[in-house]
């Protein structure tokens, strides 16, 4: 089993006890809220900056380039420089735009992605809130982001933006189904919707191995559908820079644009983290039955390293999609969902139910 020294529960509980000893319980809750909020804000900003940097480096290597290399060693501070630039830029007010909604939209997008992060189990004992319907919550919250995109497209009084927003709406509503169904596969396997329970259930093997073919199938379907849901890769129709210049955020500038940009990358992290948690064992190390020595070595790697390692592998795959494929057309995109992904997913669910019922998976 995973080593106790890497568990964050000792740290968190000691903070809790320390606070409890000096102040009233309601004040403790409030303080903890504030601490968690600040930690997540910092994490959010740093992660977003890092992901942008990572994407630029990955695509540069794929395209025989060097990528950012001016600010700092290997261009490490390039994204920070970009952020400072975006902060200093003018916020252009759009003529005849719906001012209130126009300003509200970036916040909706960023808050929803922020909320989804709260339920993710990052490491043993490091989870802000462990809901008993964790998957359901994450899915529900992350699909709220489309509301922000729709509002952004509608309120900015631009024809390109409106088309982009409408595309995005159609896309996310349909791909939501596939994402849900492929996640349902693991819910059936593990018999729980609580993220911590799902992770615990993978202590002796990840679901992608234990669930063999149907789980692998669900994983692939999830990857495709999730890429579509975050408006990325070959499915970036809402932005589609060669058709709609920049889609729904055409009219945004400065930090408001940065919010959309950041939210897109955080959403990528969220879907990768969900895939990690559900299919690849979350923060669980790689264990192979019977190889005791190997398993023990794996245990020495901290759980947080496992989690982020797996997440970034999936993030790399999503980036790999984007930098390889041409963009789909809107009708083909919907065809792919309704004619291919959804039927396959439904078949897979039936298959999994049988597998679980007969007990054909590795326990």
């Amino acid at each position, binding site marked *: 089993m995973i080593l106790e020294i890497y568990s964050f529960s000792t740290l968190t509980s000691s903070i809790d006890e320390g606070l409890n000893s000096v102040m009233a319980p309601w004040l403790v809750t409030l303080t903890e809220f504030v601490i968690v909020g600040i930690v997540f804000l910092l994490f959010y900003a740093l992660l977003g900056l890092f992901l942008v940097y990572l994407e630029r480096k990955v695509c540069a290597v*794929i395209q025989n*380039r060097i990528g950012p290399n001016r600010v700092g060693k290997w261009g490490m501070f390039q994204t920070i420089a970009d952020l400072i630039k975006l902060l200093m830029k003018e916020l252009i007010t759009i003529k005849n735009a719906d001012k209130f909604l126009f300003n509200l939209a970036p916040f909706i997008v960023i808050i929803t992605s922020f909320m989804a992060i709260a339920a993710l189990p990052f490491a043993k004992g490091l989870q802000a809130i462990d809901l008993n319907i964790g998957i359901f919550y994450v899915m529900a919250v992350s699909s709220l982001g489309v509301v922000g995109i729709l509002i952004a497209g509608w309120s900015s009084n631009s024809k390109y933006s409106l088309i982009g927003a409408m595309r995005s709406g159609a896309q996310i509503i349909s791909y939501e189904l596939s994402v849900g169904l492929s996640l349902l596969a693991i819910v059936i396997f593990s018999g729980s919707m609580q993220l911590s329970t799902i992770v615990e259930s993978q202590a002796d093997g990840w679901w992608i191995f234990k669930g063999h073919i149907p789980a692998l199938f669900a994983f692939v379907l999830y990857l495709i559908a999730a890429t579509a849901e975050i408006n990325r890769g070959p499915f970036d129709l809402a932005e589609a820079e060669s058709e709609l*210049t920049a889609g729904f955020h055409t009219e945004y500038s400065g930090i408001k644009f940065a919010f959309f940009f950041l939210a897109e990358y955080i959403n990528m992290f969220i879907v990768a983290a969900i895939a990690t948690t559900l299919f690849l064992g979350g923060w669980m190390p790689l264990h192979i039955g019977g190889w005791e020595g190997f398993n023990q070595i794996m245990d020495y790697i901290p759980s947080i390293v496992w989690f982020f390692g797996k997440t970034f592998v999936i993030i790399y795959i999503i980036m790999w999609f984007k930098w390889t494929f041409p963009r789909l057309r809107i009708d083909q995109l919907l065809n792919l969902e309704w004619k291919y992904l959804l039927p396959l997913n439904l078949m897979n669910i039936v298959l999994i139910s049988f597998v679980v019922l007969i007990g054909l998976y590795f326990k």
Partner: protein
Amino acid sequence: MNEEAVKKVILKEDEDYIINMGPQHPSTHGVLRLEVCLNGETVKHMTPHIGYIHRGMEKMAEFNTYKQLIHLTDRMDYLSAHINNEAVCLAVENALEVEVPERVQYIRAILDELSRVASHHLWWSAFGMDLGALTTFFYGMRDREKVLAIFEESFGSRLLHSFNTPGGLMHDVHPNFRKHTREFVKYFRKKLPDYKNLLTDNIIFHNRTKGIGVMDKEMAINYGITGPSGRGSGFSCDVRKVAPYGVYDKVVFREILYPEGDSFARYKVRVDEMQESLNILEQLVDDMPEEGGYTAKMKPVIKLPEGEYFQRVEAARGEFGVFIVSKGEKYPYRIKFRSPSFSNLFVLGPLAKGGIIADLVAICGSLDLVIPDIDR
């Protein structure tokens, strides 16, 4: 409201959802404005607006001598500048009945094919990018750089090398020219499978281009669509075959024809043409004579005998024609450039009709328009 009035309201022009693609738009590849009238995402009709970089080249050419106006033709289709130069040079040489050395003809043909490959490289890159495959851009540019390096070594400039002059070339090619051309052919043959795997065989790419913007042969001829776009509709319009100039009657090559007439056929024509150009290059480089000078003897001031001269060549985008009217002076009396992109542009409207915006972008990319070539 009665039925008539309702109809009127629905069909009212002001109610149309009109978006202006361009003059600054990533997929119009220059200052072209497409006024697209939409119904949802479906294109109801599309009107191109041009003239944003009209420089009056035909008027300017009336005040330039035949040697001076060569540099103007560079600035039309800047991606195959050499071929445009050659058209004017051939027209003047034919008018004066000057025999240019065989070596010059070979060098010109090699440069033609190199320009064509470089131009198709850029088109391939940009077409991939139009469809959202961003990596193609860098792979295409990477390979194009090799061609440009050859140009730079011999002519000192990469894009607008006014290297032709009536009677021959400005100066001799670099001693390494032949070697580097051979190296490029070898290099690019190795890279062609990447092109195939990355885009040509891709299922998403097939879905985006197959059956999109179908133009039959009749339509292509009627609209005067030439070059790879015309040959994608089965219109045999390769000037190198139809009216051979230079040494093109001495080399063996295939005119690429695809009868389908959709965007994918146009794509295939260009990709196959790159390969065919490599075959031509191999033959030309082997046969190119070592001796023979680089220019015929020409008078310092060229005066064309009175008359009208028409010369056409196969540029990378289609048939490039020069029509010179001379009154026996050192300046042309009237000069007309028949540029391929000008004719090719206007089929975009009929082809895009009924498709959606993404199709419009795909068709526009597959026609391979160069805007300065349209505006002149």
